[in-house]
């Protein structure tokens, strides 16, 4: 699902700024490639795709997520793990 998000995000970006579909690829931070607008695009697209493809909406803009942005959006892998955690929290509780 996240790779589909990256595909859509890359369509909005020039070829030289395309993100790799690699779980270790840095998103934000010292070696990150996303500015604020691109990060917001990523968040919006991820929320939309989670609702559409998994049928379970999640919120990535609440204070809890915002307080750990560096960790959550550090790499694609971190984001995948965080989404999984949110989804299992929803399922369990």
């Amino acid at each position, binding site marked *: 699902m996240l790779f589909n998000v990256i595909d859509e995000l890359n369509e909005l970006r020039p070829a030289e700024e395309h993100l790799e579909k690699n779980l270790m690829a840095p998103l934000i*931070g010292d070696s990150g490639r996303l*500015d*604020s*607008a691109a*990060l917001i695009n990523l968040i*919006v697209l991820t929320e939309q795709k989670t609702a559409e493809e998994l049928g379970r909406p999640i919120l990535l803009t609440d204070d809890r997520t*915002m307080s750990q942005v560096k960790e959550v*959006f550090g790499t694609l892998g971190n984001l995948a793990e965080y989404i999984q955690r949110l989804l299992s929290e929803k399922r369990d509780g």
Partner: protein
Amino acid sequence: MEIKAFTVGDLKTALLSADFWQTKTLPITKHRAISYSHNPRADNDDSVLLVAYQDSQVIGYLGILPDKIFVNDAVYKIGWLTSWWVDPSFATTGVGAILLFQALNAYQQKLGVSGGSKEARKVLDASQKFTALKTLKGLDIKFRLNVTGAILGKRPALKIFRVVFKIFDDMMDEIVNLRNFFWKRRNDICQGLTFEYISLIDEETGQFIQRHHQLDLTRKEKADLNWIMAYPWILSAPLKDSSGRRYYFSSRSNRFFYLGVKVFGQDSRMVGFFMLKVRDDRMSIVYSYCESQHALSIVAAVVYQALAMDVSALSLYDGQLVASFPELGCPYWSTKGISRGFSLSKALAEIPLTNYRLHGGDGDLAFY
């Protein structure tokens, strides 16, 4: 990275703290902080400034201006985004996005945006959280040529010809003065109107505004306009001071002031009120109130003030005044249509916004 939210109360404390003002980059100027802390529409626990710190230094900030919008009998508390800045060397840390989402969360997703830079618009559009209101259309009237400013603004290298441009401008100004002199003699532009200048809204004006602001989205009252006039974000000062140099947004101009102008008809009845702002050689009408039959008289009064204050340009955003301006037939070099964009977050989408009025000073625009 640490994000700190400053409420009105926190800002009052920060004003007394030496440490807050020691950072290399300032997230706010003192006079703007004083203004925020006197906002009559803000509560003491409203977040008004979000600051991102890295190793105790400011790497980004976002100001929020608490306000109220009125639709029919309903009142909604909102915050207008203002002064949003991110240190370019931290552009890929997500700090701009964090600031925006924290502001939305602090105001239950109810925010507004007035104007805004291209970069800010890009981020706001990406968030898909905002919907545009109707565009406020206005008119920019150029009374003086100001070739010096226009050319040197675009080509600073031509500074060596400054004297030549200045002489040309002075000659043109004399032509303008002559044209204005004959126009004023031929036309009694103020048609027996009288004015009263005020630096604070008095009772009579407050009541006049209340009778004419029912359709206004932000329905400004006496206390709101007094606050704007008493606590400007830009000071009249010849040079940037030490805090101005450490703050990214405007904090001073050579000439900056507000003035309230009450307009009375021949029968001494108040027929209009406008609040003008002069910044350097430009006058803008930030709030104006009158009945439609008096629009021509009011725009005449506005032009009369602009000529008397010797400004180069005048910006009008009141539809009635813009429509009446051509009837005046006053001399000018050029006019062009201008516009100001406003957006509200989608959380306010349920508000039945159909027939409402915006002013040129709404949002944070009165302050710049």
